[in-house]
């Protein structure tokens, strides 16, 4: 024992000895040992109030020698005997001690769990059939695993407020609430908007929002995610779909340069819900409401579902080959210096790589992207509302994206630029191009998921898949390479933007033979030094640091401080 490092402690969990760093919470030690300790109130990103009592376990320490007595002798493996405590302890807030024993099975621990489950369900409405949480409810899960399976409660249940609007996006059912206080702690500790609290006492305790206030901050929906029961539900998702019917796809948020890791829940090609997915280097366990709700437009009636070509003064549907042939014809008639390409920092690295190839193939005189710089919200929303500006810089080689837009506008104005290819952007809406200006072009091609004023003026309009309908990689604000995964198929004849660009290159006489976004990633790894040696698989679900940007994510920095101070596990 004396030889081992002092910061590693021996802990026996269910009879097996392990080593854990000093300061590890008992519940985390058990988790690392592959033993699940059921819990409701504990959340590694929040402080531990120890109020649910579900994580009570039997604990023991080496016996303290009586005064004058010799201390106990270690066994042949160097472990001291364990003197088990008669009272259970909570595993969530207590840290391990040297030679500690933890029993997650046995009459004491199991009795505690059964008792707590029975008490939690005593006044619970048991309305699972109409509860959104059913299927992902800790009460249901632990009830099956640790509960009695029957109720001895013969009294009338406590009546509490139901269907309470605590904020514009959140609804509360107080009867389902188990008072774990996760939401209260989240709004206080993470969102700095402590509007939730408890009133009344004992079994009549209710979760409530302070009088005259509402839970309206842009992170409010995270409370729904961390609510272990169906007390807090999302107005947006409420009653839309049973969770067990949905397919989960891991991907990333594209609403800003943070690139929050997400899980998108779908059924039969329709997105029902987006939730944050834990990534301690990017978004912790959280994401902004504005980002998670920004998906309903994907099903909009304004979606472009087939290529359109301008025929006289109106657009008519066309096949891909007709639209591409028309484009190629028009572009071939122009000199490279007469062509400008405006791509998007919402495009993936793979799309940007093939766009770069298009630019070179056409020898286009100008290339740029549309910048979107706003205020950093001090939490997770980066000032840069484009998800892949770092990819643009690295792959298109633009040092200052957006800086050439003026020159392009001037070129069009002066007739030097006659052809414009707009990839996944709406110039009239988002880049300050006037319709009048765009009218001066000989040829305008746009790709975009939705009908828009720029497309309205275009000679060729191509339906480009949106973020949920394509795969690729992006580089976030901190320089982390992350994977965007295809969640659903695009509607109609929609193609992924990289496919459109590939086909455009082919139509204009440049073959390449690329069949998948992963092929493009392989080329990236070969052609862009920062990517060298990285494989698609290696990026994994959590991404990996690719470049140094010197940028940080405020919420993540604060979380690091909280972890360092021992306040939270992290």
């Amino acid at each position: 024992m004396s030889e081992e490092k002092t910061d590693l402690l021996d802990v026996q969990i269910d009879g097996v000895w392990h080593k854990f760093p000093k300061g590890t919470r008992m519940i985390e030690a058990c988790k690392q040992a592959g033993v699940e300790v059921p819990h409701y109130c504990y959340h590694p990103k929040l402080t531990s109030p120890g109020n649910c009592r579900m994580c009570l376990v039997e604990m023991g320490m080496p016996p303290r020698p009586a005064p004058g007595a010799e201390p106990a002798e270690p066994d042949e493996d160097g472990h001291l005997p364990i003197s088990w405590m008669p009272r259970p302890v909570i595993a969530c807030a207590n840290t391990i001690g040297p030679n500690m024993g933890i029993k997650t099975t046995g009459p004491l621990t199991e009795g505690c769990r059964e008792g707590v489950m029975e008490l939690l369900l005593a006044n619970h409405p048991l309305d699972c059939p109409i509860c959104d949480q059913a299927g992902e409810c800790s009460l249901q899960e632990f009830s099956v695993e640790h509960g009695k399976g029957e109720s001895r409660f013969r009294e009338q249940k406590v009546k509490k407020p139901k269907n309470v609007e605590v904020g514009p996006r959140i609804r509360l059912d107080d009867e389902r609430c188990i008072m774990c206080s996760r939401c209260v702690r989240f709004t206080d500790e993470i969102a700095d908007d402590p509007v939730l609290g408890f009133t009344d006492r004992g079994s009549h305790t209710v979760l409530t929002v302070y009088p005259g206030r509402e839970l309206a901050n842009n992170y409010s929906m995270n409370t729904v995610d961390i609510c272990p029961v169906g007390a807090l539900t999302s107005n947006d998702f409420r009653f839309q779909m049973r969770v067990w019917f949905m397919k989960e796809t891991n991907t990333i948020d594209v609403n800003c340069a943070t690139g929050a890791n997400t899980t998108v829940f779908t059924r039969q090609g329709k997105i029902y819900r987006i939730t944050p997915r834990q990534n301690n280097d990017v978004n912790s366990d959280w994401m902004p409401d504005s980002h998670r709700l920004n998906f309903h437009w994907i099903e909009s009636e304004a979606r472009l579902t087939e290529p359109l070509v301008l025929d006289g003064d109106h657009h008519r549907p066309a096949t891909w080959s007709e639209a591409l042939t028309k484009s190629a014809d028009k572009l071939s008639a122009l000199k490279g210096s007469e062509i400008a390409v405006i791509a998007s920092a919402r495009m993936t690295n793979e799309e940007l790589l093939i766009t770069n190839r298009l630019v070179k193939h056409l020898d286009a005189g100008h290339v740029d992207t549309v910048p979107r710089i706003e205020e950093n919200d001090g939490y997770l929303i980066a000032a840069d509302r484009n998800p892949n500006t770092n990819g643009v810089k690295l792959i298109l080689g633009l040092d200052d994206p957006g800086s050439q837009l003026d020159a392009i506008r001037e070129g069009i104005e002066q007739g030097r630029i006659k052809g414009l290819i707009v990839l996944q952007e709406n110039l009239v809406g988002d880049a300050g191009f006037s319709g009048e200006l765009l009218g001066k072009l000989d040829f305008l091609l746009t790709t975009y998921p939705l009908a828009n004023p720029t497309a309205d003026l275009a000679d060729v309009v191509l339906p480009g898949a949106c973020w949920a309908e394509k795969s690729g990689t992006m580089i976030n604000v901190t320089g982390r390479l992350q994977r965007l995964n295809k969640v659903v198929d695009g509607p109609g004849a929609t193609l992924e933007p990289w496919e459109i660009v590939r086909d455009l290159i082919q139509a204009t006489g440049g073959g390449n033979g690329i069949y998948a976004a992963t092929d493009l990633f392989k080329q990236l790894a070969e052609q862009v030094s920062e990517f060298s040696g990285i494989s698609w698989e290696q990026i994994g679900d959590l991404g990996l640091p690719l470049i140094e940007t010197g940028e940080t994510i405020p919420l993540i920095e604060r979380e690091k401080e909280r972890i360092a101070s021992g306040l939270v596990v992290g």
Partner: protein
Amino acid sequence: MSRVIYKEGREPHPREHRVVFKNVDREGWDPSMDMYLSEGGYDQLKKALTLKPGEVTDEVKKAGLRGRGGAGFPAGVKWGFIPPTNEKPVYLICNADESEPGTFKDRYIIHQDPHQLIEGMAISCFAVGAHLAYIYIREEFPEGAQILEKAIEEAHKKGFLGKDIQGSGFDLEIYVHRGAGAYICGEETGLIESLEGKRPYPRIKPPYFPAAMGLYLCPTIVNNVETLCHVKHIMEIGSEKWSQTGKPNNTGTRILCVSGDVKKPGYYEVQVGHVTMGELINDICGGLKDGRELKAVIPGGSSAKVLRADEKFTIGRGDDAKEISIWDIPMDFDSLAACGSMAGSGGVIVIDDSRSISWVLNNINNFYAHESCGQCTPCREGSLWMKKITDRVVAGKASPADIDTLDSVARNIDGRTICAFGEASSWPTESFVEKFRDELVADTNPELEGVVVNAETFTAAANL
């Protein structure tokens, strides 16, 4: 010292030994500073200020003063838990949230002899190095709060509080903080949360032991009113002489508050362990009411486990072990613990044979269901459940199996909660079911086995 004369009809019983309660009900006594000074008031503070803080603590340790609030933990040892490396401010809090049913001693100290408390606090603050102290007084004592405010003001004027007390260089401010009517604020970490302006949710221990991480996460000593008063007397007569009152490990005097079915309920300050339960009830309290027989005693506030009148108890160890009846239990910490209950807050509740045990238990369960703070699951849900079951027992709408459920609910609370309220709320049920199961079952109806009944309706019908 002149002979102390008490108000007519309020004279202490000859078996009493008045120390802390010396001036309670005293003829011609008032809570003013002048009165207090006329009998050597604040002399002990002056004396303490000439000592080193550690010497004062040592005196309290040597005296063996055990906390009078409920847990009976040695005060000097508690003071010693302040980390020696501490660099943060230290706070002292006087717990005047006296809310354990059956306990009514601190209010008389506050009402009639507030300077005794302030002097005791000042000495204690000097000992632990606190320059800011609070008296957390329950909402139900508005007059007490005013009296304390006035006494603090007087002490300021005389230089016993404030900056550079009596030229010693020691600074101390004491503030009165009124509670808002919650039993849980008597739990020291709940009290601290309340003092910080939050809901009085008790803190988890570890890590929040007040002596290390208390008020504003600084070392904080929380002592009961009576305990802090004793500090003054320990300084006055010295730890050695003080500890000669009472019994070893159960030193000093303590105030027993006797309520219930005795002829003369009231407060009686006695040497710890020098009177037995029988002497307390029969001699000091004038005996049971005529024609009545003792059924049970709750010896240390309503949360203490009940003692049945015909029970046999074993006290002492080894060769000293002897079997005694309830009448012979010495009223001290260790003996009551040996009898399976506790001395607690000193609230002795006497129950005679006119009382229905179901009603008594229901009354207690009502209190704890109402006072559970609701923070942690077992106590929050269990205390109301127990109340609802006993509601039905009282209303005659329970089945014998409900008594088993009642007991098992209590055992699902006991030892599994954040604070000692779990035990406070479950021990009555556990002990009543253990000792009076026959009587509880007698109030049930076997035909109601498994029948779901609406408890609220029956409670209303029973006019509870």
